């Protein structure tokens, strides 16, 4: 079908299997190197190179290649398929650019050693998530990327960061519980104790626990992707993290949820009911993210809500693929995700650039931000337009298709709001450190160019198709409408009141009260049970109960 997805364009000398393993091992080695005091100073500089093996692997390793790293009982296997390669390559680019940015951004920060450790661990986890092919290792990789991302979120150690970190951890542990339950049910469908994901998913449609598995998988992965209502942690976490951290979180860590869906949902086999549900949630989240993002007053929180919205779109695309059972739709969702990954990473870095520079320089940065925003919104002749056109293949012009194009209006409006916020964010007097300018610009350029390179191999259509007459027409009116709306609102001085980040979280006050109540209840029950007469009576009662029961 598409060239890029099957044959490697660049013959290379290193054995492909070793490259896959090296992609994960390199960042892990860096994290372990932090333990040796001698290497500690070197590590921040090496962070830029760590993603290199992953990038080469994404580009060079033939698709469908799988390598058995550990023998029978563990079956720790790595494999590279189309979607995996796309996401791996995009992630590698983002990690390199953000790594360079972080190197300069963190030069004066006393805790840069700790940040570098969490950075390397999250990077290793993210590459592993895209590569592993067996269930237990996927759970390990997913846990690694989720828990080490906590280190990036709470790096600044401010009260908001701590609150956001605790919420992130609580929901991550909840997500892990959902996934372990789903994986156990999946694995029970096969004879293997630790089956390959491919075999487990093959047995899914016929499994007696099918609906439970799909529900738990969706709950676990959409929590990571940030679909409504499990998105509450994302605006809080991405806003408090340092700029490169936010870029990595919003760009790559969120995609762990995407690859989870792509791996664990059957490709080309229709799951009635679930596909539509996912599409509906995706579309609702797309609009919900925009509606709340527009009210934000800080560029990073606006971007976080934009991520929520875009992940809603990706969810909708995957849902549509599930509903229709269209084979080969998943790589397109991955392509859209990569486009979002690079654009969002670039936007965060540009926002960081603006925030660190004088008002004049901030306005120039806002220009770049505007271009990136337009690409995300899908302005014709931009990478975003290619992505929007590609998902049209998966989501034909039904209600879902129309709503998705309508969401482009929203994202155009949100991107305009982001650009406005970036212009106003230049507060510093001196010029930003040189080290952060170059990576931001480089990533912006990559974000705009890469979709052009990927469009043909992924969709199999010539570039011209995306720029044909009617495609342009369908692409331009949503963006125009969005910008018009933005102009109107800007003229009225953005009258919208700011919704505090984590929106429905504040509606969950009673939930927290309920939890405190259970806490007190348990402590009271424990105190009563631990009084001697009660415990002694319980002992005798237990003996009597066992005697009665054990006939």
């Amino acid at each position: 079908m598409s060239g890029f997805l099957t044959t490697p364009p660049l013959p290379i000398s290193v054995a492909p299997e070793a490259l896959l393993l090296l992609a994960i091992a390199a960042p892990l080695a860096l994290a372990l190197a932090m333990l040796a005091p001698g290497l500690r100073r070197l590590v921040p500089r090496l962070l830029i190179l760590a993603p290199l093996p992953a990038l080469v692997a994404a580009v060079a390793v033939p698709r469908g290649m799988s390598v058995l790293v550990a023998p029978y009982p563990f079956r720790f296997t790595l494999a590279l398929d189309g979607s995996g390669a796309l996401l791996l390559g995009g992630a590698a680019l983002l990690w390199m650019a953000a790594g360079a940015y972080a190197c300069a951004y963190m030069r004066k920060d006393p805790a840069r050693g700790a940040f570098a450790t969490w950075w390397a661990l999250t990077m290793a986890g993210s590459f592993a998530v895209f590569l592993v092919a067996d269930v237990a290792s996927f759970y390990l990789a997913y846990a690694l990327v989720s828990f080490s991302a906590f280190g990036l979120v709470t790096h600044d150690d401010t009260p908001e960061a701590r609150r956001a970190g605790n919420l992130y951890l609580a929901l991550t542990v909840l997500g892990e519980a959902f996934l372990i339950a789903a994986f156990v049910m999946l694995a029970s469908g096969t004879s293997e104790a630790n089956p390959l994901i491919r075999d487990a998913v093959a047995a899914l449609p016929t499994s007696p626990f099918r609906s439970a598995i799909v529900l738990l998988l969706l709950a676990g992965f959409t929590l990571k992707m940030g679909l409504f209502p499990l998105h509450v942690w994302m605006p809080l976490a991405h806003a408090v993290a340092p700029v490169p951290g936010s870029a990595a979180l919003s760009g790559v860590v969120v995609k762990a949820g995407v690859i989870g869906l792509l791996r664990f949902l059957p490709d080309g086999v229709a799951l009635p009911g679930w596909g539509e549900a996912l599409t509906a949630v995706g579309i609702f989240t797309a609009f919900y993210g925009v509606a709340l993002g527009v009210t934000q007053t800080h560029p990073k929180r606006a971007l976080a809500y934009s991520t929520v919205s875009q992940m809603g779109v990706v969810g909708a695309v995957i849902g549509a693929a599930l509903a229709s059972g269209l084979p080969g739709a998943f790589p397109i969702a991955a392509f859209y995700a990569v486009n979002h990954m690079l654009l969002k990473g670039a936007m965060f870095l540009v926002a960081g650039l603006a925030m660190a520079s004088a008002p004049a320089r901030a306005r120039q940065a806002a220009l770049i931000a505007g271009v990136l925003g337009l690409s995300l919104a899908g302005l014709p002749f931009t990478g975003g337009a290619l992505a929007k056109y590609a998902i049209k293949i998966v989501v034909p012009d039904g209600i879902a298709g129309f709503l998705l194009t309508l969401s482009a209006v929203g994202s155009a409006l949100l991107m305009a709001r982001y650009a406005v916020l970036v212009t106003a964010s230049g507060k510093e007097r001196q010029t930003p450190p040189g080290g952060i300018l170059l990576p931001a610009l480089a990533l912006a350029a990559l974000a705009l160019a890469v979709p052009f390179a990927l469009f043909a191999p992924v969709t199999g259509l010539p570039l011209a198709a995306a720029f044909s007459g009617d495609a342009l027409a369908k692409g331009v009116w949503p963006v125009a409408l969005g910008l018009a709306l933005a102009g109107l609102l800007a003229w009225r001085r953005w009258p919208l009141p700011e919704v505090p980040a984590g929106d429905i979280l504040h509606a969950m006050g009673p939930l927290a009260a309920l939890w405190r109540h259970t806490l007190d209840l348990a402590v009271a029950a424990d105190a009563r049970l631990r009084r001697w007469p009660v415990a002694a009576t319980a002992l005798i009662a237990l003996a009597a109960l066992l005697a009665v029961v054990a006939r």
Partner: protein
Amino acid sequence: MSALLVLALTVPLLGLVPLLLAGPRVGERAALAVLAIGAGLCVAVGVAVALSGRALQYFVAGLAPPLGIGLRADGFSAAMMGMSALVLALTAFYAMRAPGAGAPRMPPAFFMLLLALASALNLAFLAQDLFTLYVALELLTFAAVPLVCLDGKPGQLRAAMTYLMFALFGSVLYLLGVVLVYGQFGTLDFARLSAALALAPPGWSFGAALALMSAGLMAKAALFPLHLWLPPAHAGAPPAASAVLSAVVIKAPLFLLVRLWADLAPVPMAQAAAPVLAICGAGAILVCGVVALAQVRLKLLIAYSTAAQIGYLGLMFPLAAGADAYWSALAWTGGTLHLVSHAFSKAAMFMAAGLIAEVFGHDRLAGLKGAARVAPLSIAAFGIGGLSLLGLPPSGGFTAKVMLLTSALQQGAWWIGVVVLAGGLLAGGYVLRLLVLALQRPEDGTLPAARECGWRAGIALALAFGAVALGFLPLAPLGFLSIGRPIAWEGLAP
């Protein structure tokens, strides 16, 4: 080869002589050497059982049951012996005085009690006679209670008193069960009893005797709702002592509980009684888990975590007594693996907590911010041990959790699966609480000047990695654990 069993019992006791007669420094070293040899012996027993594929057996004084007492090591007991010997040896090393340091870290009494614990535990795992097991349980209690109040503070003394009295109440009930069993069958030997039970289905009175023995064992293992003595005792004891108490001492009564219901009781009786034990287990996981989250002191949090983790064993009973042999064997392996990996991770966590308390001078959680900077190895040990409790791969906890979940799923026991998952969530709560605090910087920026003691943190880390190493066991019923089951004496007509 069966001589190993006798040596495993008697060698630890030999360490008492130098401790009582020679000075404290010589006594400490002798105790460590003896415990190391004891660990070697236990591992040798495990290897012998694994290689021969049969259980080792030995008749004391050459007399076969019913008159004599038999010792027998099957796969399950060999695994538990290996675990407890390793933890005891490492704890003795942890409690040693630093080389060249003047004052001893722990009084000589600590090492005497540790040696007695080693012998009592091996006896509990090997003895096949119910009364000898009673004496083993008493030996265990008398060695454990003074451990709780070594520092002599009133709170510790009160906790030790409650522990002693409740444990004695439990052991009297156990003894009552033993008396009734002897009254009905005229023998106290496991193999002969199960042979007699196989012939004629027992009446309600054997069920009552088994119930009394189980209640006694649950009291000594502090299984919910009988956990009144565990939190104050394990939190009040000095760190090396609470590591041993939480990791291995409560495992002997749990081991015997499993022996009673899985090896002695006929299957229909075991299936009938299993739900009661499972409900107690679920109560332990949920109530003690939530109460652990409400604790403000680190050692109390870990003690409640112990009370909660014991509950997983309660959940094992209905699954291990299930109809399907494969899934029962899987639950059996999962339960045993949880026992062993909990021992390693809990010992590591208590040792780490001890080191952190030494550096900060207290163990109030709120005041431990920045611990990762001041005591990195201890926090690492606590974290890795904690992740095993949480059930994150690669760790023994994860493998055990998956085995229990799979067995629960296949046998349709949905609520057990839900409780196991909820337990994982709560464990996440109380483990990550310290890790999050450790990563934060204290508001007033003042970190204690003291640094953690490196080699002792290394021991805690080694134990934590022991729990991780268990994660590499395959997710299938372990053949080693089913060697020597069902229990029968070789070369003896039943």
